[in-house]
């Protein structure tokens, strides 16, 4: 990979075409898994990992520059911190009705998308944290090499 020029980084044309067709579907599937976490199996953790996998897919096929342009490092750490803050503030907002982690929003009708009170919001917060955190770990472990390569 070191001998290639800047604008042909990543894998071959076949991989790039397949990635262009599938990466949006993977991202949509992650959003579906996390937003239906209170209705069907799945939830914030699995949805967040699938969202991180879609960006990792992009990075593996197109190289580091394209993926980091779609999701820069500053945005990653912002999402990571935002997930933690949303989770904690939802928990603290429970004190308006009595105690920590009180389910203070109305329960709604079962099997609907907008139901179950605070559970979907907590799912979204966890998925932000997990997705941004795992993507940042992948970038740090794989691309910013621990031992700098000697050939380039």
């Amino acid at each position, binding site marked *: 990979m070191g001998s290639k020029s800047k604008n042909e980084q990543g894998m071959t044309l076949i991989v790039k075409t397949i990635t262009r067709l599938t990466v949006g579907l993977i991202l949509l599937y992650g959003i579906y*898994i996390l937003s239906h*976490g*209170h*209705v*069907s*199996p*799945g*939830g*914030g*953790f*699995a949805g967040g*990992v*699938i969202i*991180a*996998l879609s960006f*990792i897919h992009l990075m*593996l096929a197109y190289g580091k520059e394209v993926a980091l342009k779609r999701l820069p*490092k500053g945005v990653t*750490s912002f999402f*990571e911190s935002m*997930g*933690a803050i949303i*989770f*904690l503030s939802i*928990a603290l907002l429970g004190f308006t009705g009595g105690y*920590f*982690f009180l*389910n203070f929003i109305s*329960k*709604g009708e*079962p*099997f609907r998308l907008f*139901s*179950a*009170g*605070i*559970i979907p919001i*907590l*799912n979204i917060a*966890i998925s932000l*944290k*997990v997705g941004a*955190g*795992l993507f*940042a*770990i*992948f*970038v*740090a*472990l*794989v691309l*910013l090499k*621990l031992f*700098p390569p000697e050939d380039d």
Partner: protein
Amino acid sequence: MFELYFLLIFMIIGAVIAIEIKDLLSSVIAVGAVGLGLSIVFLILKAPDVAITQLVVEILCLIILIRATLKKDLPFSTTGRWFLNTLITVLFIASFLFVSWKALRDLPEFGNPLMRVASAYLRDGLLQTGSTNIVASVILDYRAYDTLGEATVLFTAVIGVLAVARLIGRKKPEDKDVEEDGF
């Protein structure tokens, strides 16, 4: 029950292959096969949430392992003291089997768990939380405090990895333009 034992034997064989094989890529793929078998076991035991999480985390670990281990010459440690190593291993396995045989006799039988708290969750979960997925209602409502702790652990782990693997303070001064701020 038959398919469960089949998958367990498959996973044990995969784990042994992953340890014993010399090629690094084949070893990583054997680890992935073990993870896939574990995911199907969770699916057979009717835990789809855990199965989905196991599958996606396994894919992520496989990608990281392949990208991190391929094209690197990792040294193989082959010591000559095979007799002592085998003796210690057999002793550890024997003591572990003995202790687990003593301990596991007190557990309830496979497929008949104790349902003191869980039956209350199953009975009142939909009414009290409004969530039709009981797993989500347990981890994000009844036991949300545990999930807060787990999220804190993940946050600390991410910060730790980024602090250890960052490039600031590691680069030589002349190639500072590659990564100017690190993570």
